[in-house]
């Protein structure tokens, strides 16, 4: 049986080597090339990067953006998480679902909606102009503040989810003890509750903090190029005859990848060292839930409502443009049509088909890889399993642009995969690899080994045990993982944009092409609207099966990686 495990492990390693290590090594090699010289490698590009005040400025800007986004999401997310986790309020489920909406929305779709709403000739400005309140359009969103706003809105759920998971997991007896000792509610919150959920917070905070280092599209939509991932994209996509520009772009990709991986690992070690383990698990599934006083209740509702409205504006505005055509210079559309949807469903159904096909295939790859990988990591003592776990988890931190560019470099000549559409699902699978694995992993951990052992003692083989005992028991967690994987693959763009060719476009690429490179923002709006609907339906399915939307969106790992 041990030999079987080793075989599986070897196969998994081959896949990792071929689709992760091999392409990423190309990225490093390319970054060491020097323009105008063949077969000559040096770290000159890196020296140029750190000597050039412009690149340092983009680096500083990105860092500033990351800090601002983290602060904003934390300030707005903390009360929200507390309300959701602790207060016993009616309609909490609906609010939770609404507040989670941005997680399923591609960030750039939110940016488009924001421009329609708050742009120089957007709804608000036009209304103010029409009413004669202002003479000239005001600038609401173009600039760093707009970027911070939209990214914070997009990333807020990550903080809320991780924090509320933390609040729920705390043993109520600890807080009660503090109360008995005479600590006031604020003191109790600051000295007991917050420190206890800091590992959970950090898990969400890392995702939030790393986001500006990977998102190149949103800054570009706001007309801000001076961010590390954006300048990397522009340098690579528009280098033309200037090879140095391309190499500098790749250097930027490598550096932002290194930053992401570094911060990710640092926080992971910190969390592991700081993890609080209570000997007695005195908590229930819901954790400590209290009935708020009437004033608190009112304030909570107001707060949730404000956030929900902000979040809901995105699908509403996208919906308005989806059902109208060429709606410009009017506060509200005056012409309603289904043309955009007709176009998506009838004239170019290939985008919709591709989206489902590629995400579906990626999902299939994900299952074929994820289940055995989760098994190897949790249930066996195969040498190198920790390294396997480590590399897969690391993919969480890798920017999509790094995967996209490295695939384009690696799978061209020797292994010409990039000429076939299979590259699309493959890259999606690799990019979203950890999502499914973490979910399967967590389910495996929850599954009591004794059940499997009993099966084996009774004479069933390893495989039979797996299919008759483990799989049915794992099913729920695995299913949630599947759907989450599908959702994440469905809205992926930053890798796919580098690899797609005519005929391989997916819905997110269609949105990008119709808005950013074309004039048809009605169609882009309709596509984004359709995506929201599809993903939201999927999320509701998960919520029903996985029990609770909070758990569904975050997985049973409870906010830890």
């Amino acid at each position, binding site marked *: 049986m041990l030999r079987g495990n080793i075989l599986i492990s070897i196969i998994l390693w081959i896949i990792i080597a071929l689709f992760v290590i091999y392409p990423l090594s190309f990225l490093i090699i390319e970054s060491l090339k020097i323009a105008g010289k063949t077969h000559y490698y040096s770290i000159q590009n890196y020296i140029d990067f750190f000597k050039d005040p412009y690149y340092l400025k983009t680096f500083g800007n990105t860092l500033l953006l990351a800090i601002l986004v983290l602060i904003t999401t934390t300030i707005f997310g903390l009360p929200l998480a507390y309300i959701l986790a602790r207060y016993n309020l009616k309609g909490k489920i609906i609010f939770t679902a609404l507040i989670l909406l941005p997680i399923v929305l591609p960030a750039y779709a939110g940016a488009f909606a924001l421009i329609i709403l708050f*742009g120089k*000739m957007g709804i608000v400005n036009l209304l103010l102009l029409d009413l004669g309140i202002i003479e000239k359009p005001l600038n609401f969103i173009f600039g760093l503040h707009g970027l911070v706003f939209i990214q914070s809105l997009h990333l807020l759920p990550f903080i809320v989810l991780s924090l509320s998971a933390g609040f729920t997991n705390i043993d109520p007896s600890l807080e009660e003890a503090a109360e008995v000792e005479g600590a006031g509610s604020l003191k109790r919150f600051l000295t007991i509750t917050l420190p206890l959920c800091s590992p959970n917070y950090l898990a969400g905070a890392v995702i939030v903090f790393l986001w500006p280092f990977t998102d190149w599209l949103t800054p570009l939509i706001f*007309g801000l*190029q001076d961010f590390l991932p954006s300048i990397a994209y522009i340098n690579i996509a*528009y280098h*033309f005859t200037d090879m140095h520009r391309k190499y500098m772009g790749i250097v930027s990709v490598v550096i932002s990848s290194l930053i992401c991986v570094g911060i990710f690992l640092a926080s992971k070690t910190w969390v592991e060292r700081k993890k609080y383990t209570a000997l007695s698990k005195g908590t229930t599934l819901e954790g400590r839930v209290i009935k708020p006083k009437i004033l608190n209740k009112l304030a909570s509702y107001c707060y949730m409502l404000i956030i929900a409205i902000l979040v809901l504006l995105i699908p509403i505005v996208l919906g308005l443009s989806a059902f109208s055509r060429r709606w410009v210079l009017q506060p509200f559309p005056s012409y309603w049509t289904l043309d955009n949807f007709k176009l998506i469903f009838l004239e170019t159904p290939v985008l919709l088909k591709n989206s489902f096909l590629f995400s579906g295939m990626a999902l299939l790859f994900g299952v074929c890889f994820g289940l055995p990988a989760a098994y190897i990591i949790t249930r066996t003592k195969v040498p190198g399993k920790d390294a396997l776990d480590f590399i897969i988890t690391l993919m969480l931190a890798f920017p999509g642009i790094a995967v996209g560019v490295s695939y384009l470099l690696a799978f061209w000549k020797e292994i010409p995969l990039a000429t076939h559409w299979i590259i699309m699902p493959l890259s999606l699978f690799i990019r979203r690899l950890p999502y499914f694995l973490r979910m399967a992993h967590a389910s495996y951990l929850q599954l009591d080994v004794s059940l499997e052992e009993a099966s084996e003692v009774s004479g069933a083989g390893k495989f039979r045990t797996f299919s008759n005992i483990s799989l049915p028991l794992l099913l729920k967690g695995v299913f949630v993982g599947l759907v989450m994987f599908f959702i994440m693959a469905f809205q992926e763009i930053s890798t796919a944009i580098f690899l797609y060719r005519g005929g391989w476009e997916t819905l997110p690429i269609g949105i990008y092409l119709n808005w*950013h*490179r074309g*004039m048809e923002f009605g169609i882009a709006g309709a596509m984004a609207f359709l995506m929201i609907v599809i993903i939201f339906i999927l999320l509701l399915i998960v919520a029903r099966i996985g029990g609770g939307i909070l758990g569904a969106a975050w997985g049973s790992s409870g906010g830890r990686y």
Partner: protein
Amino acid sequence: MKKRTILLTFTLICIFLFSARLQAAEKVGWVGPVYKELSDSLMKGFKDYYKRTYGKDIEITFVRPGGWPVCVDKVRAWKGKPDADVFLGAGAPAFEVLEKEGFLIPFKPKEWDKIPEKWGGMKVKDERFMWTCFAPWIVTNLYNERVLKALKLPVPKTWKDLLNPIYREYIVQTLPYASGTQHEVIEIHLQSFGEKEGWAYNRLLAAQLARFSTGSVDTTHMVSRGEIPIGIAQPQMNAMSARADGYPVRDLLPDKTILVPEAVGLLKNAPNEANGKIFIDWLFSLEGQKYVLEGRYFPARTDIKFSNWEKEGLTMAKHAKEALGVDSFWDLKVGFVNYNLELATKRWDEVNRYYEFEIYRKWRELKSSLFLIEEVEGEIDAAKKKGIDVSKAEAKIKEARKLFEYDGAYAQARLTASQARTLLVSQTR
């Protein structure tokens, strides 16, 4: 018995061959930066023509990875094993690069003689048949007439008009390395105003910008939506196209510009070379040229009159006539720059890099420096009106402006402007 076997074998072979032929569908591939409307229109037209003429379907693939520099790079990435047959679109500079790097083979389309050789001093087709223009256009700017009207601003007519402070924050352009058209606009400035004045102009224009867009289509988009009312560096047909869609935009033909001979060329080692040739021949036929117009580009043949086509029922011919104000593209009267293509191609990267390093990257510094100079200039003018002798301050601020415009020494210009202000204060005392 034997006869039957032979017959059966023959039939089987026939069926086999026939099905094999069915499987090996005819193909042709295009790569290039043309807009979707054109590629859609040409696809429709050529498929129809192919079916009619050869009795077979043809499968067309079209790759448009981005603006023309990106397309050229795509061809380069194919490393002589192209995944397309025809490079469709882009002006002479792109084809010069492709030819120089050996990615093209010569091909003379049947109706080659119907295309003018030169126009306003600019090459329209290649005498070695490497490329031929099928859809000419002029580099223009774009404006949103409704927004300009709402802001009570006049329409700028010349390049210099755009420097008027009333347009500050109402102009958008992209980076020269993100768009071939934008690059050409800068080259136009350099070649028509002279290098020194050309860069000075670009510094001043940069101070007028609301922001940099990510590409020329992004610019069109922002102007059409009214986000920013004036867009620099636009292909001429964008105004016609956006107008046909109902956007309130108009073409802004500047006083000095160039022609972009949007051309077609055959790629070396093309996998479907024969079909590529059939396509190029068709593209220059009257039928192909009609599909070019339907695809919202101007047709290139000299024997085309829009009014005749309008009578035939082509609605786009009407839009074209109205957008251009003439009956054939070649009847246009434009102030062309004596454009040195060779020089432009040679210093392509150099110009882009200069713009990026000296203007784009220092954009903020540039603006704050210019705004201070303008402030001090205003103060000096006010003092002058009061009859105060401000000659020293005036000389100093002129020095500051020179430092700003010609040397691009923004920090130093700012310092000099502050010194001029100090001088002014001491002189008025």
